[in-house]
């Protein structure tokens, strides 16, 4: 199971990297969103999987590791905030410059 999820997150990282390397602002933002998915999966896997019950006291004898879950919860919220800001930024860039091509945005004079 761990190996499967690790390989899955590896695939996600590959896709995200490819998207980040592209020209369009939208693709780059999509890439960062996928990259955060991969990171969350990895944190989860590192804590060990399926070795206990839900981390609520009284639900079983041994609970799964709760610490990575808390970390991921924080991370989800932060990556959502970042995605939201970058989407609005992309919107604003497009409004000001009429392009979403990063190659054309080079050396823009308001830089």
């Amino acid at each position: 199971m761990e190996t499967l999820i690790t390989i899955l997150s590896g695939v996600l990282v590959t896709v995200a990297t490819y998207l980040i390397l592209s020209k369009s602002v939208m693709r780059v933002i999509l890439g960062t969103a996928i990259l955060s998915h991969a990171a969350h999966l990895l944190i989860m896997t590192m804590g060990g999987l399926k070795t206990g019950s839900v981390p609520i006291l009284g639900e079983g004898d041994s609970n799964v590791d709760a610490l990575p879950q808390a970390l991921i919860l924080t991370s989800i919220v932060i990556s959502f905030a970042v995605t939201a800001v970058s989407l609005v930024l992309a919107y604003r860039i497009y409004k000001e410059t009429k392009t979403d091509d990063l190659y054309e945005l080079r050396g823009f004079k308001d830089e």
Partner: protein
Amino acid sequence: MVFVLTTIIILCLAVALIQLRHKRNPTTVHIGWFILLVPATLFILLTSYIPQMANGKTLLFTMNWIPSYDINFTFYLDGLSIIFGLIITGIGALVTLYSIYYLSTNEALGRFYTYLLMFMASMLGVVFSDNMMVLYVFWELTSISSFLLIAFWYQRKKSRQGAQKAMLITITGGMSMLAGFLMLYGISGTFSIREIVSEIALYSDHDLFLPAMLLILLGAFTKSAQFPFHIWLPDAMEAPTPVSAYLHSATMVKAGIYLVARFTPVFGGEETWFWLVSGVGIVTLFWGSFQAVRQTDLKALLAYSTVSQLGMIMSMFGIGSVALHTDYSGESVLYTQAAFAALFHLVNHSTFKGALFMVVGIIDHRMGTRDIRRLGGLMALMPVTFTITCIGSFSMAGLPPFNGFLSKEMFFTAVLNISHFDVFSLETWGILFPVIAWTASVLTFVYCMIIVFKTFFGPYQMKKLEHPVHETPSGMLIAPGTLALFVIGIFFFPNLLGDYVLHPAMNSIFPTFPSSELTVHIAAFHGFNTELLMTFGIVIVGTLLYVFFRYWKGVYKLFPEKWSFNTLYNFILDQLEKTSNTVTNLYMTGYLRDYMTYIYLFFIIATGGALIYTKTFLFEITGNAPITIFEWIIAMVMMAAAIAILFAHSRLTAILLNSALGYGIAMFFVILRAPDLALTQTVIETVTTVLFLAAYYFLPEWKKENTTRKIKGINLLISVCVGIVFTVVALAVQNGKLFGAISGFYENAKELAGGKNIVNTILGDFRAFDTMLEVVVLLIAGIGVYSFTKLKAKKEEKQLED
């Protein structure tokens, strides 16, 4: 030591005075008169120390600065430093007097005298410092104040260029000198030059000994305008003439020579030291005199002659250092006389060169030109100026009855002696010393004659001059006149100078030798020896060369004008700028993809390389949890969705596939016993999808990437490599768990925090600090989104300058 304190107090008061007077009442009295008090007082103070020095006493004064690092203001007054101190303050006083008449009150006098005093103070600091770090600080201060003085008329382009060149070259040398000092500190463990001198015998086999020597010499050579670093000196002639007279003939350019003299007891006696110092010196002597003959600008001519004379002094110190090669003996005493001659010529050069610069300044001031092709026939019109020029030039040419004759004879004695020396392979190459020295002296004679005859003899060219000629006001002539008196005075009473001033300095250069053996009796006439015959030869050949100058002028055309060190220097500067520009433009493209490529390549090479190098890529799947068919399906669907995003034709497809990924992860969270995560992930994914869809509405259509196939291939390769490295690292890490988790502690949630949900107690109690800041992140993001959508760029801000 009273002297140092007085110096500092006087200098500080003077600088304050400049500013006050200048602000309050700039026109009435020339502020130079107040400034004149400073060097004059210091000179008299220093003179009062001469008797003590002559009795072999030295004075030491320490003022703590950074005691924990052994860096303190340690001032050391001995024979060597007092010579320089006397030159600095004495000529400083004369130059100030001269500048009072030279600069009109319309000039920025406050600035001029502030820089000049700053220079004087730092120069005194250089020669009196015993601590190498403090010496370096003052050394750089002389570079900086010289830079400021060269560019005094900063409106002129040439002044700025000359200042920049002088700055770059001398600072380069200064930095390397600092490195040398640090190496010496590493060897000996002390910054004190006196202590290093007394202990150096223990360290001369150290690995850093030679590098330290070379680096310190580089500093000395750049400062003293030695070949091939002499190029800054002619360009520094754009400075006002008092500055050229003071800094660029009498004081600053002798700082390097002071350094060589000061470090002779440390490095002297080494073969490298001897060959570098005397070899570079003699080459500089020849090259400077060779170049001086062709100059048509009097100041440039004097600049090259300074270069040449500095080379002569430098080579004599090199020859003198041979004496330290063997222990004290009758023969080694012979070579110490070269160092004595160097000190003697140092004083002589300061006198006659200072006078010559001031005279050229007078000519420039009165005629508005200093081009020898436009000057001529001034002898009858400016008799006093003419007399002083004759004294200065003939002394420089080495003719009696001027002091230059004595030092030139002693120089010949030194080079003749060294050609008989039988170490350092001098038996084969030693003969070059007298030959080059004699040739250079002939050329020196030629340019000295050019100064006198081209300027003061021949036809008077009225039309080419800007002002009608008449003799200068006497005030301007006081300073050069005094120096000219010294030139003659030293010739008739050389031993007065030798016994009282130069002799104590010899003790500082050769501390291991018995003091009584170091006295040299200077006599104007030694009988008909080789040296005298060489002087006769110089006069005869020099006169012939001067008379037939137009016939052999062609020598200078043998090499094209372009083949100079100036061209090389400019070429290096140009290339540095061009290359750095090219290199920067090569990788700073302003394109996100390129920067991300560098980051990913670093990740692949560093992380992947470390993996291969340490061979940690071991996998084990035995400890894995079992996989059900349901999980297989989710994982496969997610992988397919991820890959499909790359091929999506429309944006909507891509967004939906991304949310498929998000919900897939939420499902995994359910399977992996993480209810809170599953909940949050579902909600957040929904909101994100809504956001993407909103952006879909505002952003342009998802265009097909118009990148080339090659770039796509590279991108694919990079992303596959990143994915592989990432996966391999993750797998390798899962394998080697070194210690168990600390999560057992959080199972006490009920007792410690009063909650059953462990994840929530972690977020709200155990690690609530994270949660607080995460809330702040959300808040900031909210403000960011609001301002991005609401605030409009103000048009008028675009007017700001780039």
